[in-house]
């Protein structure tokens, strides 16, 4: 096992790891605001058109949405487990779990794709083929615009996450990490959990609107 030296500007590996984690949390704070802007738009329009949003919510695919939520929650579990193994230095185990996490991510995206296709089929894509009769047409279109923006931006983050997780899986398999140095895995975990956190809030806002109506 080779000794890893800290980068030039750091006094120790400990400082480097501490600084990296801090940096990642600051980055996650920026992501909260990034998604938050869209949530303000959602809040304004849901507050203005409650019946329209309820109508729109009933058109969302609750089965796919719920399954996807289960997938993401489980993937958070597997990546947290991977970080736990990384703390112990079990490189191969880490790689397997990271691989599983990435696979979950791919399934999530796949289901999302199926869902988008269904929505296209039902003429629910604003600006492209949106068609809806009835008094709530405008409000439903606003809902779906926000739906595609929110899930689209989220999906972009999932994609980035999958790439990161996959790269880390390969590196872990090749023995790049030890129980004294596994910071990149920890940071990747934090990023992935954040992607899950966003979805935890998107789920009720998208799929559970108007279900009791």
């Amino acid at each position, binding site marked *: 096992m080779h000794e890893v030296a800290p*980068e030039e*500007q750091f006094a120790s590996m400990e400082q480097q790891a501490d600084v990296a984690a801090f940096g990642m949390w600051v980055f996650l704070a920026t992501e909260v605001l990034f998604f938050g802007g869209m949530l303000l738009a959602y809040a304004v329009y849901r507050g203005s058109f409650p019946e329209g949003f309820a109508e729109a919510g009933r058109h969302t695919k609750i089965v796919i949405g719920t399954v996807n939520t289960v997938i993401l929650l489980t993937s958070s579990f597997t990546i947290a487990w991977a970080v736990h193994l990384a703390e112990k230095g079990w490189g191969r185990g880490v790689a397997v779990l990271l691989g599983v996490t990435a696979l979950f991510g791919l399934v999530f995206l796949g289901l999302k794709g199926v869902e988008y296709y269904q929505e296209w089929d039902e003429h629910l894509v*604003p600006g492209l083929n949106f068609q809806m009769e009835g008094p709530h047409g405008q409000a439903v279109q606003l809902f779906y615009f926000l739906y595609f923006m929110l899930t689209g931006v989220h999906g972009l983050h999932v994609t980035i996450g999958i790439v990161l997780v996959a790269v880390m899986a390969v590196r872990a398999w090749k023995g790049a990490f030890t129980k004294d140095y596994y910071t990149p895995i920890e940071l990747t975990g934090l990023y992935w959990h954040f992607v899950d956190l966003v979805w935890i809030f998107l789920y009720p806002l998208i799929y559970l609107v108007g279900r009791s109506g």
Partner: protein
Amino acid sequence: MTAATFTDKPAVSVPSYLMEEGSTLRSWLLTHDHKRIAILYTISITLFFFVGGAAATLIRLNLVTPQGIFEPGTYNRLFSIHGIVMVWFFLIPSIPNTLGNFLLPLMIGAKDLAFPRINLFSWYLFVAAGLLALFAVIAGGVDTGWTFYTPFSTMYSNSYVILAISAVFVSGFSSILTGLNFIVTVHKMRAPGMTWYRLPIFVWSNYSTAIIMVLATPILAITLALLAAERLLRVGIFDPALGGDPLLFQHLFWFYSHPAVYIMILPGFGVISEVIPCFSRKPIFGYKFVAWASVSFTAVSFLVWAHHMFVSGMSLYAGLVFSLLSYVIAVPSAIKVFNWTATLHKGWISFNAPMLYALGFIGLFTTGGLSGLFTANLAADVHVTDTYFVVAHFHYIMVGGMVSAYFAGLHFWWPKITGRLYHEWWARVAALLIFFGFNLTFFPQFILGYLGMERRYYAYPPEFQFWNVLSSAGASILALGYVLPLFYLSWSLVKGQRAGANPWAATGLEWRTSSPPPKHNFDVTPVVTRPPYQYRPEPEPQDA
């Protein structure tokens, strides 16, 4: 007793950061050294300053006569490009990415920022954004104003809106990464003994700026993304005809853009807080007040945005709330101005160029700030909104204030950064030209605004011509003042006298290492034992 565990004059001649990594283009473009990245930024933003300045020149030329010389559509593109370039490609990166990048690690006793590669990436993003912006300008520009208000920008404008906002979007990420780097660096990379209350105010200011960058800019990013999607898909998120609210755009846009104007002044406060003590030979008055006033902006600047929307159609109640909060934000600014003035009191003042700029800053920034009180007043703002009064207000702060501060800092730290002394006489001439030219350009605009001349209009009633001519004349003097430093500063690089480690006998860790510094900043990591600004009693003689 003294903190000197390092020498001012190294026994052996150590290569500086300008030479150590090599002097090939590749070594500069792939550098991780914060000092080289600072220089890369300086060159980039100087280019953009002159692009924005060219637009300003054409604007002032147009306004010499009441009927103008440009088509209205062209004029709209000129002021839009002027705003976009000056805000995102000059002012926001100016002090933080040039002086901040260079000095922050030095001032805290570190070898580099926390994330050097992210720093370089930040510059790459800035260049990419800049190229997009230049492309937008050359392709024909955008005519929405730098504020991109909807539904004009989404539904009606026939200009290159999406290209322009893409440029701004990318520049935003450059900003966020810089902010992230600074925050982490200041928290985690300070030298032993460098407690928070021993930090120079320049560090406190740039740290506060970094927090604003990190928290505000993501909202800009998502707002521009929504704008682009709206323009492409015509869905109505901001269009009343389709059920949307144009004010939603304004709320989101100004939630970023008001804090952004604090990004565009706080670093200037930091520079002034270094220059004034040095050239008064006194510690800054009320250090803790100045420090915490800087930090207070990270919160208060986020609470006032809708004072840009008083006449937009938002509710009167919101107008009252935001007007009240906008008065509150005058307090930290005033604290700083009082403290700088008190620093001058009974000081041993010398009028070197940096000090001339700093003194000019105090006057010009205060004037701009006071005029802000008028605009914060709900009733008065109904009269002056969208007039030249507002234009004068923000130019006094951003140009009279921030640009003066940038020049003050550039001159103050020039010997440290380049190892050369500039020609003091020419520098003072430039400073005076800038001060005089600036006032002649912008004071008439207060009057024009009060008399009712609208902003963003290519033509105006003939009774306004007198003041417009004065303003344009002032602009030509101002332009001369801005061009002069290009010459004498460049000249100094080749022929200027070599500077010692501390030509101003200033305090601060950056003055303890050679001019220019070695790549690793300090031969030995400094240990700090004394508070900042120890000008009384006079510091021990330095090699000058």
